[in-house]
């Protein structure tokens, strides 16, 4: 297939793949095709069919028009910033998920414009002076942040919902379960959506909560357009965000109050650690570290309690265990990966006749059934009824 400018489709496919940072092996794995198939397409030996071209357009985040040489849209630089910041931690499937996230933000931005909805948070609302913050500095900044979010001293609860209320977009993606070889999250400021956070949904709930708090630290205090998070980063902004997240999720004074409230001066059993973990809605490991850092747990007990299997213990203590704690199957997430505000607006837009089931399915990459579930009990827009007879009929 050749179109305008004499440039072969195969060359355009190869260039788009390269710009997306993917190898032929990556694309072959995503499409469940042998690598020579991708090579043959790029060399013009064979041509992809309509569905395969749509798949490539999605993977490369290029409009199909661009792949066919009918148009040329500029490519935003966010993904290059993300890839550069992530180093070599992103494999092919993770890079594809980044593309999906960025593509969703573009669609979400258009959707917000179509609804006349404002952009989310775009500028950090709080300030931070340069230099290495002390523990007291961190505590003060956390106090400012909690005040900004109108939180008291206790558990932050559903942090994703909180972020949503303050105009921060949170999106889940399957970026790989092993943090040795992937990232835990990223954030960027999208021109039409505002501050947007990507969370690796294949990490544990505790890690996700920490990553979100970490990224909120960036949202509140930093102006960097793109941030990528993974364990071991030592840059000053990353260190601040880590310290911020720990204190924000489990304020030192709140932890002390909680332990005293249980009639203890120190924690001496893993059951209490599990209770505190559940109260603050963080990971078991994090509570252990916070207790030790606050001198509420001895080093010996810290080492001992690290050997405990916290989910099993929690279940024996009567806590309801979310299957999500055991495995993270992205196919089960459905609409849960999307920002809450987006889902609210989808329902509203559907009732007002601004968005169809198919449009929403296209934007989310989900099945129409997922959207129909979301819209169950939502009124059918009048134009959905009228056009059944408006445009003429074959019968």
């Amino acid at each position: 297939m050749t179109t305008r400018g004499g440039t072969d489709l195969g060359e355009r496919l190869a260039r788009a793949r390269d710009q997306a940072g993917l190898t032929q092996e990556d694309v072959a794995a995503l499409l469940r095709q042998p690598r020579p198939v991708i090579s043959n397409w790029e060399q013009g030996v064979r041509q992809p069919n309509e569905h395969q071209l749509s798949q490539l357009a999605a993977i490369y985040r290029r409009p199909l028009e661009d792949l066919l040489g009918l148009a040329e849209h500029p490519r935003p630089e966010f993904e290059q910033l993300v890839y550069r910041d992530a180093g070599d931690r992103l494999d092919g499937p993770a890079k594809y998920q980044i593309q999906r996230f960025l593509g969703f933000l573009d669609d979400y931005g258009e959707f917000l414009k179509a609804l006349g909805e404002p952009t989310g948070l775009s500028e950090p609302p709080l300030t931070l002076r340069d230099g290495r913050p002390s523990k007291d500095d961190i505590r003060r900044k956390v106090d400012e942040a909690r005040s900004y979010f109108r939180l008291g001293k206790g558990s932050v609860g559903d942090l994703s919902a909180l972020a949503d209320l303050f105009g921060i977009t949170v999106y889940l993606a399957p970026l790989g379960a092993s943090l040795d070889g992937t990232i835990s999250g990223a954030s960027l400021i999208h021109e039409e959506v505002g501050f947007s956070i990507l969370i690796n949904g294949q990490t544990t709930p505790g890690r996700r909560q920490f990553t979100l708090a970490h990224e909120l630290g960036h949202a509140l205090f930093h102006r960097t357009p793109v941030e990528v998070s993974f364990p071991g980063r030592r840059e000053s902004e990353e260190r601040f965000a880590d310290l911020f997240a720990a204190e924000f999720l489990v304020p030192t004074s709140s932890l002390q109050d909680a332990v005293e409230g249980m009639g203890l001066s120190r924690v001496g059993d893993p059951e209490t650690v599990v209770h505190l973990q559940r109260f603050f809605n963080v990971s078991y490991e994090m509570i252990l570290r916070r207790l030790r850092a606050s001198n509420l747990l001895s080093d010996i007990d810290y080492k001992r309690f690290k050997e405990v299997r916290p989910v099993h213990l929690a279940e024996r203590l009567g806590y309801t265990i979310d299957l999500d704690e055991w495995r993270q199957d992205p196919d089960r997430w459905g609409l849960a990966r999307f920002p809450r505000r987006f889902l609210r607006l989808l329902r509203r837009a559907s009732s007002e006749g601004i968005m169809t089931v198919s449009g929403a399915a296209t934007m989310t990459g989900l099945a129409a059934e997922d959207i129909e579930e979301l819209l169950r009990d939502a009124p059918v827009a009048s134009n959905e009824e009228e056009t059944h007879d408006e445009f003429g009929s074959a019968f």
Partner: protein
Amino acid sequence: MTSSAPPSEPILCNTTPTRYFAITDQIDLLIAVCGDTLRVPRSVLDPDEDPDGPADLLSEIGASMRFYAKRAVGAEAIERWFRLNDLRTRSNISVIEMTEQEMERFAELQSREIQRQFGLGARLGRGESAVIAIAEARGWVAAIDDWEAREVLHHVSPGTTMITSREIVRAAVYIGMIDTGEGDTLYQEMLDLGYRGPSNLWS
């Protein structure tokens, strides 16, 4: 409502009619109304795709199957999955391959420019774009329910005939394949499953 006879032109079905008639176990009815062959674009149904691939890269019917496999609850989910899976091997379902010109039209219809031109909440889906591109080029009938897609098709190709899943049920009654009561029951079942259309089959 006009004539009781189905059109002579082939009918090209988008995902919604294909899906609803399949999950209500009435796919043979749809095929009969369509003239004994169900024609769909590959974006709607791709019998050659690996059904275990990334969900958002599947055909639209493939995505529905993933929903029933992973997210739907209840015994009906399994049944519906099998009914959709059955589509992949039927000999009376014809997957239509696009010409180069239809492919270009397919690409244009999914553009941001079309979205903005028509004030759509989102870009047109792959299934709708494929049905519009092929039906427009070949003078076929487009079986589309999505009202945004119908509006776009009406403006870009006023001469192309459209039908909805609801009209297909009505046609089945007119032709005598099912009686009025069966038609009402089928349509109500579609509504109960989430079909977005008028609350009544006839008014």
